[in-house]
């Protein structure tokens, strides 16, 4: 399908692509559509939230197609608003690269401060996973080899030890990671 931008090099479940191709707007994405989030994902987010809050009340909750569109449109506007504000935050600090802090500051500015802490936590978890991999056991084994703790924790409390090691490593790595500072590496990033 010409112009079908669902073919991204992002790990997406196959269902998403199939669903996007099956939507009524199966022509090449318009300018406005390209700026929208995949409907399938918005749909899943909405339905999951509803399952959470409405679950246990028996019958399933239905979402009208128009309502789903409203959710998707709202998310799109939110992204634009957040982008523009984050860009302003970045400008204020006289940097060239929009980083996570700019986004978090923007949320404060937009009065979505309640999001900030959960986002920090998520971000840290994401970074930890990036560095240590989902199978933290392998890394903690490699890193802990000479640590006496390791032997004690070995008997069943492995995850706790690796969490502590993660914390130590994280603090060490914060100095070397190109996350918070304006790095030459950031400028090399082409942003694709």
């Amino acid at each position, binding site marked *: 399908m010409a112009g079908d*931008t669902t073919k*991204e090099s*992002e*790990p997406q*479940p196959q269902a998403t692509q199939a669903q996007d191709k099956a939507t009524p707007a199966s022509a090449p994405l318009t300018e406005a559509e390209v*700026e929208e*989030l*995949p409907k399938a*994902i918005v749909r899943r*987010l909405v339905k999951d*939230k*509803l399952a959470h809050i*409405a679950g246990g009340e028996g019958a399933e909750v*239905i*979402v009208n197609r*128009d*309502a789903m569109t*409203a*959710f998707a*449109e*709202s998310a*799109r*506007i*939110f*992204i634009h608003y957040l*982008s*523009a504000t*984050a*860009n*302003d935050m*970045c*400008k204020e600090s006289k940097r*060239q*690269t*929009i*980083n*996570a802090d700019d986004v*978090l500051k923007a*949320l404060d500015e*937009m*009065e*979505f401060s309640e*999001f900030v802490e*959960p*986002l920090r936590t*998520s*971000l840290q978890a*994401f970074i930890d996973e*990036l*560095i240590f991999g989902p199978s933290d056991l392998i890394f903690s084994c490699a890193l802990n080899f000479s640590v006496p703790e390791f032997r004690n924790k070995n008997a069943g409390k492995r995850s706790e030890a690796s969490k502590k090691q993660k914390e130590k490593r994280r603090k060490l790595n914060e100095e*070397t*990671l190109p*996350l918070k500072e304006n790095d030459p*590496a*950031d*400028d*090399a*990033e082409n*942003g*694709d």
Partner: protein
Amino acid sequence: MRQARPYSGMFCGGVSARTGPHALPLARIKKIMKRSAGEAAAGDGGARMISGEAPVVFSKACELFIAELTRRAWAATLEGKRRTVHREDVADAVRNTDLFDFLVDVVTNDND
């Protein structure tokens, strides 16, 4: 002289680590961010670069936003004693929440 950063490749090359089963596509988010930032920065001398972790925060922020909007829309649905969420419920949620003032034009385009 740049010091060796073992994992910098991951950030420079674009972050594609999984961020969860409901992850929004980072590439598209990045595109949207650049477009918005580009428009805003038009007088500024060019579009801004976007760091590796920014789309991640964005993606999660969107999830939280959608969750909050859903929660409020559902409250409106309940008030109407229904089980189906209609566009009007979303409109009500927007109208009743100061935080969602920026959405007021998007949703309420049908007759009230």
